[in-house]
């Protein structure tokens, strides 16, 4: 799923300056799972914005704000939108832009979308997939070096890891004493198989993930 975090309140308030009538949109999918844009977070946001003197014209948590059909069905026709001079979107950038295609109002992002990741528990997420358009997981025992190696090295590790941990481990995490150091994915792969160390992998075909994105039609 899309892992996200909430932007700092001050940043949100700054973006909402001069916009007094705010409609809040949450996401019942990824942002609910991350506890960044579900029912509870939307309620909390409503409370806080009211305290700041904003008028909340309405709130909704869409099943999937990234689906135009859902936005059309559940959001577009809401009359309270007409009374709003901005929509605060508590969903990822895909959700926000999907809403933007259908609703002509200023949209304010309340979240920072981070990556496609897995949830160990709330607040502990790991990026596992780069959506690269050419999955090679069968080659690497289900461990993605493109995503989970900081340098995306396909042919094996650099010399920087120690004790099985990556050289780019964030210093703040070390200082805080939280043991969330990034594993060297090549150490993990090597534990399972040596084959990828003996095979040559060609450079990736990045035209498969060329910005500005694919449009798959079928």
């Amino acid at each position, binding site marked *: 799923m899309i892992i996200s975090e909430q932007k700092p309140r001050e940043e949100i308030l700054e973006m909402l300056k001069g916009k007094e009538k705010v409609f809040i949109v949450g996401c019942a999918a990824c942002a609910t799972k991350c506890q960044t844009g579900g029912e509870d977070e939307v309620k909390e946001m409503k409370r806080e914005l009211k305290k700041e003197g904003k008028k909340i014209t309405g709130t909704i948590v869409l099943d999937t704000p990234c689906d135009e059909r859902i936005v059309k069905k559940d959001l577009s026709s809401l009359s309270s939108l007409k009374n709003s001079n901005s929509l605060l979107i508590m969903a990822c950038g895909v959700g926000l832009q999907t809403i933007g295609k259908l609703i002509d109002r200023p949209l304010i992002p309340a979240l920072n979308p981070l990556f496609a990741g897995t949830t160990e528990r709330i607040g502990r997420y790991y990026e596992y997939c780069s959506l690269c358009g050419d999955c090679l997981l069968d080659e690497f025992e289900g461990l993605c070096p493109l995503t989970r190696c*900081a*340098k995306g*090295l396909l042919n094996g*590790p*650099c010399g*920087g890891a120690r004790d099985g941990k990556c050289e780019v481990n964030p210093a703040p995490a070390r200082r805080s004493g939280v043991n969330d150091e990034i594993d060297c994915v090549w150490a993990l792969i*090597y534990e399972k198989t040596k084959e990828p160390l003996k095979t040559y992998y060609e*450079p990736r075909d990045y035209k498969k993930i060329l910005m500005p994105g694919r449009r798959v039609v079928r």
Partner: protein
Amino acid sequence: MSRFSERLKSKKFIITCEIFPPKGTDLTNLLKKAKALKGIVDGVNVTDSQRAIMRISPLAVCHILKEKGLEPIFQLTCRDRNRVALQSDLLGASALGIENILILSGDHPTIGDHPEAKPVYDLDPVQLLKTARTLEKGEDLAGRRLKGTPKFCLGAVANPSFEPLELQVLMMEKKVRAGAEFFQTQPIFDLRTFKDFQKKVSKLEAKVIISIFLLKSLKMAQLMDEIGLKIPKEYLKRLEKAEDPLKEGMNIAVDLIKEIKNECDGVHLMALGKEEYIPEILKRANL
């Protein structure tokens, strides 16, 4: 064929060292150091914004060193250039007569002085080695013909302190298959580490040049130990007791070279700004 390449092909002991390009355009200091190294070493590595700290282009510095009669080894990392820029710089190096290339992934930007930079790593070092060999065949990665064909002497890096060591050795074998003719290692301080490593790489079809690091202080040694480079307690004690730690660091370097020189293909001296001491270290180590 480059002088360094000829040396690799001979049975002779290889001596290399490295100098760091400055942050800025003033090369006075660098050229002073380079002068002291002329005729003393077989090759001088010019680092590519090492530790991800932005510095003047190593290709420019290599060119200037070559003009001064030194034998440069151009360090080329995968960190900052995509495959277009990498091939372009390889061709540029060749046109400037710079054939010796050391290929490495490059320290990640997040540990350097521009942590906001976008890391590239479009190719990995194995792919880049192959790419350089492809250029030598007269075509680029896209299969297009080149007008004028480059010639390279290619090297790669390895870390003898890496655990598990076999993983590094497998990588080295892969790099040899991709075109590496020589390796320069991370520094070694511990003879046990050296011997274990040497045993595993002796059959490799490439020259393995072992790095010797000039410890300048106890603090530096402790830092190196912390990052996993295993500094023997004896050396830490010697540095602690020494009145002049830099001098003691030189003694340690000399001792280490004497210990290993008959069991390896060559040494690479990392003096971190104290390159002027390299001639003395080599002399005292009877090289």
